[in-house]
């Protein structure tokens, strides 16, 4: 009997995706033959709105583009406008900005590790990483007063300074966090079921990653050492020693490895900043109006390269603000990864790019292409289905953890 082609829509409302996106899969049996995307379920018209707000108001607007990488968008916007205003923030300001950025990276990556564990059916891992994520959240709360929208950036520097007690507490918490992250790296090595579930899933060869313009950890997991922090140093990154983390297996496992390495690296960066915080002012005064001009601002968000294009027209409002969040950059690559994979791998592959839909601005519905019959699966069903499939499959014994 000939295999029938099915069309399966996933989303826009799907329990596995915490935010709305619509994926349309064409299946042949269990194999995904084609995939298409529809975005826009979370489009809020921020670019249009930004044109009618002043620069100061826009800091708060860009902060609300995303709930996880809120600091990424403000920093990207603020440093672009600073260039247009021709002001240079003081060193201490830049260091605090970098510190918050790295703490945000830790919290975002730990959150993702938990989700990856959950999707792979390793819920203990999920519970543990999310517990430890609270430590970072606490540091951020101590520094900024908030857990999510830190509101630390302003034109010409940052809004809050650090005192001795905050630094001491931050260092104590980071010490615990570093130990725990190393423990997770170790768990991965000694947990064959987890490694076996992730290895070989969602392959993205080096050549394809370049061609499809993947960004961030997804690109670095395909062994391409590109990182905006190194390539186009902003804030205080030119002065801080750190390594770009890569992995060469090009699959979901590689993406986990890259992110664990990055958490450890980010802990080191935070530690360095807290110990070497330069004295002095935290901000300079910024003008209200901005001279006509244009700027391309780049930032390495937890999910990858974030780019803002700002065009000013001499007033206190921008002429155009273009925001490209990293998730949108990874969609083209995700479609490639999904192709010729198993339907049971959809949640894992999709989660592996760490999608942030409110940033990029979607469900899985399965359709029989011959009969046109549709079957909607919830993400929870899919997750259960995927765990079941892999429980039946034999363990890939030869797989080794590459850390």
């Amino acid at each position, binding site marked *: 009997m000939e295999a029938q082609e099915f069309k399966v829509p996933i989303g826009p409302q799907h329990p596995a995706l915490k935010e709305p996106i619509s994926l349309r899969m064409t299946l042949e049996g269990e194999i995904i033959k084609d995939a298409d995307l529809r975005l826009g379920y979370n489009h809020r018209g921020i670019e249009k709105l930004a044109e009618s707000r002043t620069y100061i108001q826009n800091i708060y607007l860009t902060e609300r583009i995303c709930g996880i990488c809120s600091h990424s968008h403000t920093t990207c916007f603020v440093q672009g406008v600073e260039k247009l205003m021709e002001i240079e923030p003081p060193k201490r300001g830049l260091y605090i900005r970098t510190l918050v950025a790295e703490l945000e990276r830790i919290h975002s990556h730990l959150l993702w590790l938990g989700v990856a564990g959950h999707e792979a059916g390793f819920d203990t891992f999920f519970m543990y990483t999310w517990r430890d994520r609270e430590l970072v959240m606490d540091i951020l709360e101590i520094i900024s007063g908030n857990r999510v929208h830190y509101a630390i950036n302003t034109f010409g520097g940052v809004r809050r300074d650090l005192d001795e007690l905050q630094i001491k507490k931050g260092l104590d918490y980071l010490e615990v966090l570093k130990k725990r992250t190393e423990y997770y790296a170790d768990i991965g090595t000694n947990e064959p079921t987890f490694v076996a579930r992730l290895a070989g899933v969602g392959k993205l060869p080096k050549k394809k990653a370049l*061609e499809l313009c993947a960004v961030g950890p997804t690109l670095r997991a395909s062994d391409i050492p590109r990182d905006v922090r190194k390539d186009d140093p902003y804030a205080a990154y030119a002065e801080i020693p750190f390594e770009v983390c890569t992995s060469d297996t090009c699959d979901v496992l590689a993406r986990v490895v890259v992110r664990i390495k990055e958490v450890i690296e980010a802990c080191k960066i935070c530690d360095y900043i807290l110990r070497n915080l330069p004295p002095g002012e935290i901000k300079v005064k910024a003008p209200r109006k901005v001279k006509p001009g244009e700027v391309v601002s780049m930032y390495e968000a937890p999910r990858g390269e974030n780019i803002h294009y700002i065009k000013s027209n001499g007033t206190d409002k921008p002429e155009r603000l273009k925001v490209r969040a990293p998730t949108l950059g990874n969609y083209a690559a995700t479609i490639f990864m999904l192709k010729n994979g198993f339907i049971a791998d959809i949640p894992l592959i999709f989660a592996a790019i760490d999608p942030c839909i409110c940033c990029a601005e979607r469900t899985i519905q399965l359709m029989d292409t011959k009969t046109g019959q549709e079957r909607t699966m919830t993400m929870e069903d899919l997750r259960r289905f995927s765990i079941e499939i892999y429980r039946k499959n034999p363990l890939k014994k030869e797989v080794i953890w590459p850390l």
Partner: protein
Amino acid sequence: MTEIELVEKIKQGLKNKVLDLTNPASRRIFLKVDKKDLVEAVGFLKENFNFYHVSTISGVDLGENFEILYHLSNGNCVLTVRTLTPRNEPNVPTITGVIPGATLYEREVQDMFGIKFEGHPNPERLLLADNWPEGEYPLRKDWKFERPEEKIPGGK
């Protein structure tokens, strides 16, 4: 290769196709080309200087014309290629043949500005809703949002 050398080499390579070439800040280059030379210019940059990565495509409404900016990157520097297209007949050739990763960005600009990307493999709607009226492009300057009057059943 420093940026000054890069600017010189681009000038030599593209000759009279370069309408404007500036280097306003470190690691930032802006290049202006005519839209008929766009695909060739992007191909040239990719082949010779490794500009394989397109970060995004921005559109700007300039009144008479639309400006389309292709933010390319080679890991060391961001090169923005800009081109103009008239408002009454907005179209540009697609660059997906040279850089396949540009597909979603082109669809985004198409939705928001109504610019046609000629030769795009899948020119369907990406962001706007299925019931969004034809011919309305939200990021054009003359498009204003008006909240439709709310009709409450049983209300006044």
